[in-house]
């Protein structure tokens, strides 16, 4: 299994069961800083559950998880909530607040967690929305008036508003048409590039093998709660693992 110096996320013997169902099994899994790492796996493999552990939304049944050197178990609830500001997350359907406009959605975390003035907020929102390719004509539209691709852009801008150290993408391209899929993948790469100097790690959950091979630095394969393969993206296609071979040729 790959190992890194000072990983962004470090799981040690992490297991999770819901009742009698063992969902994650004894994971030893490190995610390196400032890289793009994709976790592939069949539906139901436990990918979203894994993501929720990174966020501290779920706690392991046994074992531990550290994020940016902090063992999540040692944090009180309030500290944990505060700690989550290190994360940005793009949800599968963007999860925009449907009563708020594009502008207000992106301004939301800024209003909640910073003391910026209205003017500063405007500049920051404008900057973020421009970087994901949205023009001023969509600033005051409600999410219901936006296309799926545009919603993704807004969701991404909102996730990046507080300069997260770790960006999480839960199936960012599932259910999108090929053109929008390409757009989202390009955005993931360009956001990672743009935030490289600052230091930003990207974790993507996906079952799109082809895109993962081209945009990731490392790829892990999660099967029924175990990481069965973890390689640099350039070597992943040559994996000897039967399951991985089958998944790639699907």
């Amino acid at each position: 299994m790959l190992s890194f110096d000072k990983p962004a996320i470090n799981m040690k013997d992490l297991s999770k069961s819901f009742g009698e169902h063992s969902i994650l099994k004894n994971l030893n899994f490190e995610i390196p800083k400032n890289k793009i790492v994709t976790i592939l796996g069949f539906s139901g493999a436990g990918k979203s559950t894994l993501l929720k552990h990174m966020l501290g939304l779920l706690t392991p049944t046994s074992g531990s998880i550290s994020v940016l050197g902090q063992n999540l178990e040692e944090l009180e609830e309030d500290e944990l909530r505060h700690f989550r500001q290190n994360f940005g997350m793009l949800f599968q359907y963007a999860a925009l607040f449907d009563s708020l406009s594009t502008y207000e959605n992106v301004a939301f975390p800024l209003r909640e967690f910073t003391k910026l003035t209205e003017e500063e907020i405007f500049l920051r929102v404008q900057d973020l929305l421009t970087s994901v390719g949205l023009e001023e004509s969509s600033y005051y539209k409600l999410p219901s008036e936006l296309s799926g691709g545009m919603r993704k852009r807004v969701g991404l801008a909102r996730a990046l508003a507080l300069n997260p150290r770790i960006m999480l993408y839960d199936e960012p391209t599932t259910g999108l048409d090929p053109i929008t899929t390409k757009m989202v993948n390009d955005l993931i790469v360009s956001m990672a590039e743009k935030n490289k100097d600052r230091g930003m790690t990207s974790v993507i959950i996906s079952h799109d093998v082809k895109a993962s091979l081209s945009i990731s630095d490392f790829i892990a394969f999660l099967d029924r709660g175990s990481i069965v393969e973890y390689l640099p993206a350039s070597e992943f296609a040559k994996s000897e693992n039967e399951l991985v071979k089958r998944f790639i040729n699907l």
Partner: protein
Amino acid sequence: MENVKKRNFLLARIERLGASIIEAVEGLGRISHFAGRVFYWMFKRPYRTKLLINQLYFVGNKSIFICCLAGSFTGMVMAYQTYFGFKIINVDSLVGPVVALTLAKELAPVLAGLIVAGRAGAAMAAQIGTMKVTEQVDALEVMGISSIQYLAVPRVIATTIALPMLTGLYLFVGNAGSVLVGTKALMIDEAIYLNKLGEFMFMADIWQGLIKATVFGFVISLVATYFGFQVRSGAEGVGKGTNLAVVWGMISVLVLDYFLTSFLVHIL
């Protein structure tokens, strides 16, 4: 053979009964736990005044018209029904206070409660349920914002404040309706009508209704937000959650009304 069959049948029924009792107790436990979390977040900063005002407007202001409409007709019909009963024994001068007391202690809080459970309770469960299935609730939590504090607390406080006010309004409008029907349609002397009202109606009666309404408001919104958060999947789930919120909101009002009555008559 026949006996064994009979016994199995009986056992199965008892088992099912037991299962539904356990389920009900578990449900009560979960909702109490939810109530505890709502309380915990109610007193923690940041206080979300803007959200609270929005909810007060939605639960309160937007229910004014329908409460006035329902209230006036309740008062009018009560005046009629009471009059024809009382006339037989020649106490028709007491129509005013009887209608007023019934309204104050029972009808205003219960009917306003049912209206709010149907209108606002349904909307709350639908809003939160939709936010749940579209991952907006998760989005809040990922940002480190408590969804209970952001979504449930303003709704619960707003309904707890708004329902007694709506009940007061219901009572006032209902009495206006009853005075109107009593003096204009049933020709009871206006001076006698108002005089008797003053003679038999006390602040304690009004308090009883307002206290009930406060409890109803709290429980209705608690139940509605709880079922909103319970929604797990899809539009179907939202519909089901909304339905449960209304049904249990209304049942809670009717059941609590009995217990509150039996309690309040002793202390007021």
